[in-house]
């Protein structure tokens, strides 16, 4: 407790360095921007900005990337409320009541509730991380190779429980990600694996063109297939202050939404999107007047917006303490840490305390900045919303190309971008989710290393995964989850959790 506070204070002393304040601000600003603009999400943006962060201190880089992720949650609500389009997936449910409020001339109140709810959730989530990350990291330090391997198996399985779509497809994506990760030089024997004899593949497939291709390029192609949506902004924003009645109704929803987000963010595969869905349906179920939902209930804005911000932040906990990325954005940050020579995991707190506490404390500052960026400047964002998609997608392509090229000054990597862009498009058409692939790709090398070490330690006996108590519990949990997903009743709730209320 005291340690956490001391750590947080130390972190604050780092986060308020002018350079870190600057990158925190840039992150929050870019996050809001992409949150507002439908058609570009945090995964693509973080992938695009990764190369630019190589020239920064790792702490500044992660502060900025984190700001993009939780900043996007703020921006997403603006589009949802004003235009009835989710700027981000995590704002899908905010459209329901937010847009109705806007049509009733209460857009300002809805925006303010969303921003203040997010601020509250963000602050609580920061303290939550500071309190719970250190003990979790301490537990993880006791893990042996077999335990680590099983933990990663559990992480990957849990990630797909919460994903949409078919189970077999999600599992296949995990295996494909692991397989792609094994391309390149084998660390132990030095043998080249599946490189087609191409020297550029000796270091393996770079995860930046992979992520950009699957997410950014594929997304652009599929967005361009559909006729462009014309943006019509509903209602004028006159009064930014919610009424007393709004406050009275919203505060409990904010509390509940924050609580839901805190815990769902921790789960692999969780994070912002799932949190907002669950918070909305919980609020609707608990309400004494559920019929108000969908007609401009302020709780229907407050709960999901608090939840998605809390969830976005707590999804950093598994990364910083266990080294396991919870979703695709966090997987990219894991990659960013590795490029800077910081191995994500329980040792980060001890070895890189500046980075660990600096990033956590920057979330406090970032959330305050975001309220300032979002509320008074709301008219600027509204003006940006009027930029049609066909005027900004070429810029995304240009930045992707430059970003991928400058990683290694390699045109080969740009060629990979074409390949993965096309594959990502195919995946969309066939109903494959690319997120599990990316998670598995990041974890792949670690899994193989731990598998080998576990086998060497146990003398080649695979029973070690079951006889080590920690590993056995983790594997049992993974199996239990898989069985749970296959139960017909769970299948139904899983489907409705995502489809309901759309």
């Amino acid at each position, binding site marked *: 407790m005291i340690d956490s506070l001391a750590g947080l204070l130390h972190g604050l002393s780092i986060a308020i360095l002018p350079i870190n304040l600057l990158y925190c601000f840039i992150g929050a600003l870019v996050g809001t921007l992409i949150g507002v603009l439908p058609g570009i999400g945090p995964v693509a943006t973080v992938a695009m900005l990764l190369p630019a962060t190589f020239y920064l201190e790792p702490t500044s880089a992660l502060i900025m990337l984190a700001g993009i992720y939780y900043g996007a949650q703020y921006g997403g609500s603006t589009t949802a409320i004003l235009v009835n389009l989710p700027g981000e997936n995590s704002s899908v449910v905010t459209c329901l009541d937010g847009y109705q409020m806007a049509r009733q001339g209460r857009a300002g109140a809805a925006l303010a509730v969303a921003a203040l709810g997010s601020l509250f959730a963000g602050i609580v989530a920061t303290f939550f991380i500071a309190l719970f990350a250190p003990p979790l990291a301490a537990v993880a330090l006791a893990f042996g190779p077999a335990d680590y391997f099983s933990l990663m198996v559990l992480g990957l399985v849990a990630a797909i429980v919460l994903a949409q779509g078919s189970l077999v497809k999600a599992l296949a994506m995990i295996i494909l990600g692991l397989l792609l990760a094994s391309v390149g030089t*084998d660390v132990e024997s030095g*043998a080249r694996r599946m490189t087609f004899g191409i020297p550029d593949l000796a270091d393996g497939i770079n995860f930046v063109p992979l992520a950009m291709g699957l997410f950014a390029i594929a997304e652009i192609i599929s967005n361009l297939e559909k006729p462009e949506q014309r943006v019509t902004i509903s209602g004028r924003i006159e009064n930014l202050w919610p009424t007393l009645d709004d406050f009275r109704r919203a505060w409990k929803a904010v509390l509940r939404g924050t609580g839901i987000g805190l815990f769902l963010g921790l789960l692999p595969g969780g994070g912002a999107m799932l949190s907002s869905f669950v918070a909305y349906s919980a609020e609707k179920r608990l309400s004494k007047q559920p019929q108000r939902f969908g007609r401009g209930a302020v709780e229907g804005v407050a709960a999901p917006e608090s939840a998605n911000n809390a969830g976005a932040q707590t999804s950093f906990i598994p990364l910083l303490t266990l080294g396991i990325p919870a979703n695709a954005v966090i997987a990219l940050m894991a990659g960013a840490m590795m490029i800077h020579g910081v191995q994500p995991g329980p040792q980060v707190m001890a070895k890189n305390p500046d980075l660990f506490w600096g990033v956590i404390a920057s979330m406090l500052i970032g959330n305050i900045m975001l309220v300032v960026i979002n509320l008074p400047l709301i008219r600027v964002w509204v003006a940006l919303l009027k930029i049609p998609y066909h005027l900004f997608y070429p*810029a995304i392509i240009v930045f992707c190309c430059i970003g991928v090229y*400058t990683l290694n000054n390699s045109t080969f990597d740009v060629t990979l971008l*074409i390949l993965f862009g096309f594959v990502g498009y195919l995946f969309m058409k066939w109903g494959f989710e690319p997120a599990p692939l990316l998670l598995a790709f990041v974890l792949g090398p670690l899994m193989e290393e731990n598998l080998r070490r576990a086998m060497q330690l146990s003398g080649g006996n695979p029973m070690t995964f079951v006889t080590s108590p920690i590993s056995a519990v983790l594997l049992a949990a993974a199996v239990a989850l898989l069985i749970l997903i296959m139960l017909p009743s769970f299948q139904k709730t899983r*489907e409705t959790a995502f489809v309901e209320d759309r």
Partner: protein
Amino acid sequence: MLKQIRNPNDVIGGLFLIAVALLALWLCAPLRQGTTLEMGPGYAPRLLCIIQLCFGLIMLVQGVMSEGPPLERWVPRPIIFVLASVAFFAATLERLGLVVAVVGVVLISAMANRETRALQIAAMAAILAAFSVGVFVKGLSLSMPVWPSFGSL
């Protein structure tokens, strides 16, 4: 279970997985397998290929045995022009420089939709080229040629 299966999509997806797994198995053929105790470079990839083959077959069978929505239609225009613009960047950057590459990307990718006007394309190309040179080459001092290098042509 049956309800969420999309028939032709699953068949093609399954075939795709099987094809990738077979290709990877073939590529792994020269790699030493090793034993469980001392795993060679080929151990993990082969294991993964076999698991993926199984998943591919399951999907194939599911796809054949169940009903599902039809395949989604492909729209060739954005696929061709978006990917071609990236290819243009890869082909030209090192010889013709950043300005030509960026202008090319904008011109080609703008053809992926029918809405952009000529004047807008020209403005985007000019702004993005200037921005890229200013931020990436001058600002972040990344090493990229800006103009064509006629010496090597």
